[in-house]
C-alpha cells in the first residue's frame, strides 16, 4: 500500500517555487572563469604562433595584421570555431598572456563561413568582456625560469682574468633548450639570422654535430658569439614576456663546448676549388674574418691585413679575457685559417702598405677597421693627463703593456665597454692594491641602462660602485700645488630624465643634486670612432660618406667599385652584426667575381 501511495508525494512539487530561469538568454552569464569566445590583446601579442602549434584541432591560423618588427611577427591568431574545442590550451601556453577567453558563449549564424575571426581585430560583442578564462598565475606548460649559469664567485674572479661563466652541462643545456617554443621570432632579430630554433633543437636531440654545422652555416665566430654576443635574439625571445628569455647565447656556447675542437674542420667541410681570384681584407675583426671565411670557402684567395700584433680585432682588444678567453678566440680564428685564409699581422695600412697597393694587387678590397678610437666628453678637465679613454686602455691590457693603476678611479659611461674597463681595472687594482676602488657614472638611469643587467650585477659583486643618471659636468683637477693639473675627481649632476615624451633625446638635469666622485684617474667610455685617417686624403675625397661613415649599399659596397666596407666602422659596435655584414659583403664580392669570370670567358 505504501508503494502505491508514496509516489503521490510528487504532487507536493506543485506548491514549490518554480525553478525555471525566467530569461535564460540574459539571466545566466558564464561563470567568472568560463571558457567562452576568445579575446586577444593585440598590443601584448607578439605573433609567436605557439597557440597554433599547441592547438590539437588545427583551429588557429596565424594571419598578418601588422608589419613585422623585432620580436613581433605581426601575425595574430585567427580562430576557426569550426574547429575549436574550448580547451584553452592556447591560453595556457600563450607566451605573453595576451590570449584570453571571455565568458560569452552565444553565437549562432546561418552562414557556416562566418565562424572564423581574429580576436582583437574583428569587432565582436565580447571584445570588452572582462570576465572569462585567464591563465591563473604564470605559464605552466613550459618552464619560465632560465637555468642558472654556473659562475665563479666575485672573490674567486676579482684578482684574475680567468673566464667567469662555467658553461652549461649537458643536463642543464637540455633543460634550458627544452624551454624553447621554436617560434623563430629571434631569427629575424639576429643580424646574422642564425637558425636559432634549429640549433636549440639539435641540443634537445643531443645531436651536437648537426648543431655545430648549423652554427657555422651562419657564423664562423661561434666561440666568440657564444660568449660575448649582444644577444639581441634574447630581447626578441617570446619567453621573455612571461619569464626569462631562453639563454640562446649560452646554448650556442654549449654546442661549441660539446663538440671536440679537432672535429670542427671535418664537420664544416672543405672549401670549394680555388678560383684564382684574390681579395684583400683590412682588419681582422669579426666582420673582416667572416668575409674572409666565406670567400675562402667559395675558393677565393684571401689575405687579411691586421695592424696589431694578433688577429681578432675588438673581441681581442676590446673585450677583457675574463669574458672571452683568448684561446677561444684563437680557436675560431684557427678554423678560419684552416679554410685557407692568410692573416698578416703588424701591418698598418697607410704606413706599411697603402690602399692603392691593395687595390692594384687584388680583385676586391674589404675595409673592416672597426671603431678603435675612444671618444672624449671634452668637459673641463678632460685634457688632464690622468684622463684616458677606454679603448686604448683595454688594448694595452690585452697586449700586456703597462697601464696606470690608481687606487681610486672613475669611469664615465654606462655601456658594456664602460663595464669592461671598470672590471678590468678593478682586477688590476685588486692585484696591485689588494682592493677595488672603481666608480662608474652613467648618464642613463637604470630604467634605460645600456650595459647588460648581468654586467651590472657582476660589477657590483666585484665591488664596483655604479651611479646611474649622472651627467658629467667637470673633471675636477688640482688647481695648484705639487699635483697641479692632476685629477681630483668628477663632478656630476643628476639627470632626472633623458628622453622627452616623444622618446627623443632631451636630458634634464637637477642642478641641486651635485656629486663629486673622488678619483685619481678618469676613464671615458662614452663611445668610439673609426680611424678613417688610414684611407688617405684622396680616397677619403673619392668615397661617398653618409653621416660620418663610409656610404655603403645594402651589400656593403662603397661608392668605389673595388672597395667594400663591413663591420663596426659602417654599422656601429655589435659583434654579431659584424658577422652578418661579413656574410653580406662576401656574397656581394663573390657575385662580382662570378660576373667578372663570366665576362672573361
Amino acid at each position: 500500500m505504501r508503494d502505491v501511495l508514496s509516489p503521490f508525494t510528487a504532487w507536493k512539487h506543485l506548491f514549490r517555487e518554480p525553478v525555471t530561469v525566467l530569461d535564460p538568454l540574459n539571466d545566466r552569464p558564464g561563470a567568472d572563469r568560463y571558457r567562452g569566445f576568445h579575446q586577444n590583446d593585440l598590443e601584448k601579442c607578439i605573433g609567436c604562433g605557439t597557440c597554433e602549434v599547441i592547438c590539437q584541432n588545427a583551429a588557429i591560423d596565424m594571419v598578418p595584421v601588422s608589419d613585422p618588427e623585432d620580436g613581433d611577427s605581426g601575425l595574430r591568431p585567427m580562430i576557426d570555431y569550426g574547429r575549436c574545442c574550448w580547451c584553452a590550451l592556447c591560453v595556457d601556453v600563450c607566451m605573453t598572456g595576451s590570449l584570453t577567453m571571455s565568458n560569452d558563449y552565444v553565437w549562432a549564424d546561418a552562414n557556416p563561413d562566418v565562424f572564423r575571426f581574429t580576436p582583437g581585430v574583428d569587432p565582436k560583442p565580447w571584445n570588452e568582456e572582462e570576465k572569462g578564462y585567464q591563465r591563473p598565475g604564470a605559464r605552466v606548460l613550459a618552464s619560465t625560469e632560465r637555468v642558472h649559469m654556473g659562475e665563479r664567485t666575485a672573490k674567486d674572479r676579482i684578482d684574475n682574468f680567468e673566464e667567469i661563466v662555467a658553461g652549461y652541462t649537458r643536463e642543464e643545456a637540455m633543460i634550458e633548450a627544452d624551454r624553447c617554443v621554436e617560434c623563430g621570432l629571434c631569427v629575424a632579430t639576429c643580424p646574422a639570422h642564425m637558425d636559432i630554433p634549429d640549433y636549440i633543437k639539435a641540443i634537445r636531440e643531443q645531436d651536437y654535430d648537426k648543431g655545430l654545422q648549423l652554427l657555422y652555416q651562419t657564423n664562423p665566430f661561434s666561440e666568440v658569439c657564444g660568449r660575448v654576443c649582444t644577444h639581441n635574439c634574447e630581447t626578441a625571445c617570446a619567453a621573455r614576456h612571461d619569464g626569462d628569455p631562453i639563454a640562446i647565447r649560452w646554448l650556442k656556447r654549449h654546442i661549441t663546448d660539446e663538440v671536440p675542437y679537432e672535429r670542427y674542420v671535418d664537420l664544416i667541410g672543405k672549401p670549394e676549388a680555388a678560383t684564382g681570384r684574390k681579395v684583400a681584407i683590412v682588419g681582422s675583426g669579426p666582420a673582416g674574418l667572416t668575409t674572409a671565411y666565406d670567400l675562402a670557402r667559395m675558393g677565393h684567395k684571401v689575405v687579411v691585413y691586421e695592424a696589431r700584433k694578433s688577429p681578432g680585432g675588438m673581441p681581442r682588444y676590446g673585450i677583457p679575457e675574463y669574458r672571452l678567453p683568448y684561446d677561444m678566440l684563437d680557436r675560431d680564428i684557427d678554423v678560419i685559417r684552416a679554410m685557407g685564409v692568410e692573416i698578416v699581422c703588424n701591418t698598418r695600412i697607410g704606413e706599411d702598405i697603402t690602399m692603392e697597393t691593395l687595390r692594384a694587387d687584388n680583385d676586391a678590397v674589404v675595409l673592416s677597421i672597426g671603431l678603435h678610437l675612444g671618444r672624449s666628453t671634452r668637459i673641463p678637465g678632460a685634457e688632464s693627463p690622468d684622463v684616458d679613454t677606454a679603448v686604448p686602455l683595454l688594448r694595452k691590457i690585452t697586449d700586456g703593456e703597462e697601464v696606470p693603476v690608481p687606487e681610486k678611479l672613475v669611469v664615465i659611461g654606462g655601456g658594456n665597454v664602460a663595464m669592461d674597463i671598470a672590471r678590468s681595472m678593478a682586477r688590476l687594482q685588486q692585484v696591485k692594491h689588494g682592493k677595488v676602488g672603481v666608480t662608474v657614472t652613467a648618464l642613463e638611469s637604470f630604467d634605460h641602462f645600456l650595459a647588460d643587467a648581468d654586467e651590472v650585477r657582476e660589477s657590483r659583486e666585484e665591488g664596483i660602485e655604479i651611479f646611474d643618471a649622472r651627467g658629467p659636468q667637470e673633471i675636477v683637477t688640482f688647481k695648484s700645488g705639487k699635483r697641479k693639473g692632476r685629477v681630483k675627481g668628477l663632478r656630476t649632476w643628476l639627470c632626472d630624465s633623458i628622453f622627452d615624451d616623444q622618446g627623443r633625446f632631451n636630458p634634464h638635469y637637477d642642478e641641486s643634486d651635485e656629486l663629486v666622485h673622488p678619483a685619481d684617474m678618469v676613464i671615458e667610455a662614452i663611445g668610439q670612432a673609426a680611424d678613417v685617417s688610414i684611407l688617405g686624403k684622396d680616397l677619403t675625397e673619392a668615397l661617398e660618406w653618409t653621416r660620418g661613415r663610409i656610404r655603403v649599399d645594402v651589400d656593403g659596397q662603397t661608392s668605389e667599385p673595388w672597395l667594400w666596407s663591413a663591420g663596426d666602422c659602417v654599422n656601429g659596435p655589435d659583434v654579431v652584426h659584424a658577422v652578418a655584414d661579413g656574410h653580406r659583403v662576401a656574397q656581394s664580392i663573390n657575385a662580382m667575381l662570378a660576373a667578372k669570370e663570366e665576362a672573361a670567358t
Partner: protein
Amino acid sequence: MFKIEPDRSQYPAHNPDGSCDIDLSSGKYVKIWHGPNHPGITGNMSLELTICGDEVVEGRTRVGYLHRGFEKLMERRTFIQVFPIVCRVCVPEPDLNEYCYAAAIEELAGIEVPDYANWMRTLILEMGRFNSYMMYLGGQSGSLGMGVIGQWTTYVRDLMLDRFEELTGARVYHMFILPGGVRDVLPDGFAARMEETLKTAERYLDDVDKVMFQNAVFNKRTRGVGYIDPALFDSYGVTGPTARAGGATTDVRRDAPYLKYDELDFEPVTGTDSDIWARADVRRRDTRLSIDLIRQILVKMQKPGEYFAKIPNVLHWKIPYGETYIRGESSRGEYGYYLVTDGTGYPRRINVRGPSYTHAMALLERLIVNTNISDVGALMVSLHTYPPEIER
C-alpha cells in the same frame, strides 16, 4: 517481494548446445531495431532484436555510431594535445578520462603531483560521479515511463553543472585535470555554494526515494528482472555498481585507492539481488555516498597550495618507453587507460577500457534473451551504459 515472471527458459526451444534455431521466414519471429534513433535507447546505439511475440529471443548490440577513432587520433597528438580529447570519450562523466590519462602520463614521465591537486581531482571525480548517477536515475525511471524523476534529477544535475562551471570554467567537458595537476584552485565561497547544492540534491533524492523506489510500478517491473548470476561477473567483466548489486565488493576506490580515496572514510555500497532494482538501489545509495564524499573532501582539503607540478615544455615533451594501466572507479564500473609510450613525443597506443564495453556488449546480449520487449529499455539502462566508451 514476489516474482511474477513465468519461466521463459524454454522459449524458443534450445538446442543441447544452448543455441536456438530462429527461422525468420517462418513468420514466427520478427526482427526489430531498437535504435539508434529510438526514444528507448541510451545514447546513439542500437539493439537488433529478434522477437517472438513480445519475447526477445536474440539480441545484438550494434555500436559504432559514435566512433571517432579516438585511439587513432591520440596516436598523432602530442601528450598535451591528447588532453582535450580524452574527456570526449565519455560525455556524462568525462572527468575520469582526464584523471586516468593524466595519471598514466604522470606515472610514465615520473611526475609527482602536488597534494592539493590530488584533492581537487578527487573532488571533481566525485562531482562527476554524482552527475552521472543523476543521469542514470532519470534514465532508469524514464525507461519505465516515470518522466518526472528525470525532470528532477536533470535539474539537480544542472545545479551541479553550475558548480562545475564556476570551478572548471565549463559545463560538460571540463578539461580541468591537466597532466601535471589541475588548472586552478577553488573559487571563493565554493564550499558554501556546494553545500547548498548538496542540500537541494538530498531533498530531491528523498523525493526520488518516495516516488521511484517506493513505487509499486517500479518495484514490480524491476524486481527479479535482469538478474545477473554473480558467477558470471568475471566471465563477462562485470564491475562497479552492477557487480556490487550482486554482492561483490569490488570498488576500485577501496581495492586500489587512487588519489585521496585512502584518506576518505567510506565503505563500498553493495546489494544482494543482482537485478534491476538492486542495481538502481546501489546507485541511489552510491549517489548519497558521493554527496558524503564531496563533503568530506571539502573539509579535508587544505588551504589552496601548489596545484601544478613542474612539467617539461609540453611542445616537445617526450616520454621514454613504458607501458602502464591506470584505473579508476567510474559510475558504471572499472574505467581504465592503458598507455604505451615509445620514447617519442606521441603516445604509441592508448586503449580506453570502459565498463560499458563489457556490459553493453557480451553481457547485455546474454541477459536480453528471454526478456519481455518492454523490459529491454529498463534492462539496458540498468547496466548504465554509455555508448561512446564502447566504440570510442
